[in-house]
């Protein structure tokens, strides 16, 4: 069927097709397909202009030397890509982003899981705790970055003065501790989000499984290991992929807290792409980095999905 967008005229045909449709079955099918197509057209337009064309442009520009402003654009082949793998700043930003992702994925997953199990027990005032742990999710990462900058820089050190201690709270001031500081801030914000997903998963576990285990003489640890964890397999998959891809994209939190410093020690990949495009006017180079980064994201999501899905089956 011809759906290349040129024969949109049969709108009135679609309307008038109604009485005759009994006799012309094929015509009816065509006109209803056309109506469905007309419904699909606006979303298709938004998606193509908003995502697909920029994606294509980005891929094309990554093979040029375009600065983002001038009218001149030269095809330079893979030169940008060659440069990326020699660019120490890119490699460092990539390393930083990778470490940020690994720590976040581990800590956030475990903490969210454990908090959810705690809040699914028979303790009191569960809702109160849930609200508190979820509240930071509602703040913009900009505010979270600012709050923790002040916490580390001013507020916690003044607690040292009062108590006469000398704990190093100033995590954002040294390249060795800046990652820790950002991981803490990021976890403070997002654990509550994933906790909700684990909580929903826990509430969907059939209670008679636990009862059967009790009858068989299983203790709480055995229940946890052999019922809770396997039953939450899908939630673990969702959270792991969500946290990992979310932390790879980190930008706002860092802009509002360390600004990539001290030095360039906490510059994330997105931040470096931003700087290359809009500070050093290297639009094409930034595009090449985006393409590489997208590839990494895709490979990651794919591997994670494979491994986690496989584990779900095994469990």
């Amino acid at each position: 069927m011809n759906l290349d967008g040129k024969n949109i005229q049969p709108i009135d045909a679609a309307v008038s097709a109604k009485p005759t449709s009994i006799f012309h079955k094929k015509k009816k099918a065509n006109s209803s397909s056309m109506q469905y197509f007309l419904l699909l057209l606006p979303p298709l337009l938004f998606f193509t202009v908003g995502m697909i064309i920029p994606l294509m442009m980005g891929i094309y520009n990554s093979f040029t030397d375009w600065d983002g402003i001038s009218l001149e654009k030269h095809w330079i082949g893979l030169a940008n890509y060659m440069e990326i793998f020699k660019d120490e700043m890119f490699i460092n930003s990539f390393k930083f982003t990778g470490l940020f992702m690994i720590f976040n994925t581990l800590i956030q997953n475990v903490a969210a899981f454990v908090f959810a199990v705690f809040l699914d027990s028979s303790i009191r005032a569960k809702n109160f705790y849930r609200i508190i742990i979820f509240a930071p999710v509602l703040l913009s990462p900009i505010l979270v970055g600012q709050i923790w900058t002040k916490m580390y820089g001013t507020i916690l050190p003044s607690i040292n003065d009062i108590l006469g201690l000398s704990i190093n709270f100033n995590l954002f001031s040294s390249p060795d501790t800046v990652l820790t500081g950002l991981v803490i801030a990021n976890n403070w914000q997002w654990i509550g989000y994933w906790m909700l997903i684990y909580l929903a998963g826990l509430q969907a576990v059939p209670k008679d499984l636990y009862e059967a285990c009790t009858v068989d003489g299983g203790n709480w640890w055995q229940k946890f290991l052999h019922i809770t964890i396997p039953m939450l397999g899908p939630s673990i998959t969702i959270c792991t992929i969500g946290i990992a891809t979310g932390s790879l994209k980190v930008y706002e939190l860092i802009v509002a807290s360390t600004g990539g410093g001290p030095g360039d020690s906490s510059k994330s990949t997105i931040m470096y792409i931003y700087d290359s495009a809009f500070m050093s006017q290297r639009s094409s180079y930034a595009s090449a980095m985006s393409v590489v980064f997208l590839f990494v994201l895709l490979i990651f999501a794919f591997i994670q999905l494979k491994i986690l899905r496989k584990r779900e089956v095994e469990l």
Partner: protein
Amino acid sequence: MNKRYSKGTFLIQVIVTVIALFYLIPFLIVILYAFKSPEEIISSSPFSLPERLEWDNFSQAFEALNFLQSFANTSIITASAVLLIILLSGMAAYSIVRGRNKFFNGAYMFFIAGILIPYQVIFVPMFVLGSKLGFINNLFGIIFLYIGTSLPFAIFVMAGFMKTIPKEIEEAAFIDGCSIMRTFWIIILPMLKPVAAALTIILSLQIWNDYLLPQLFLSDNSMKTLTVMQSTLFSAFETNFNVGFAGIIISSLPILILFVFMQKHFVKGITMGSGK
């Protein structure tokens, strides 16, 4: 609720309380500092109560945030983007699920592939294209981009729900002479309420708190969003940073209040949106 309050439960209660305290400390600090005077930040301990409530911090922060304007901008962008995303994703999902031929399946795969591409990796060409299309300093432009980049996920969720709607209801409408478009508008759209509510929550949270796009596209002072104004708070008030803390309270209060009243919907929205 007085069933089984064992030793183990008590232990968990204690642990959870400690965790909650860790969570509360930053909030507490923000509130305490927002009410202190500039002299008091230096002289008093962080956890001391303010001597008197310094409301002046709030009026200064209100001005620095250009609050009414930036709040209105953020609201307009979020509300229109979310509304249109829901309408458009509903249209796409309906035609894909009911159209059911190779073309519509292909279109579905085309959209779904977009889920894997976060806008953070295409914002450079997005800006290039956007400046050609006149999207700079244009609220509609940024709304357009939010729609384009959020549609894949929304269509994915919508299509999943659409498959559960029985066809019989529509067929009755068709027999009565209702066109497909009218059927979508009158019968299908109202049935999408549960997914629409879930999507509204997740998408609003994302768009409301987004910083990268508005910072890139909206440089005109009258168009800046809340997040962009927030980012300038502490650089503008370096010494009397309690104004910054007051600004944090002012700018996050609307969404916190909304959460308190719509808590159930938030929980549902988040678990539904990412749960499938």
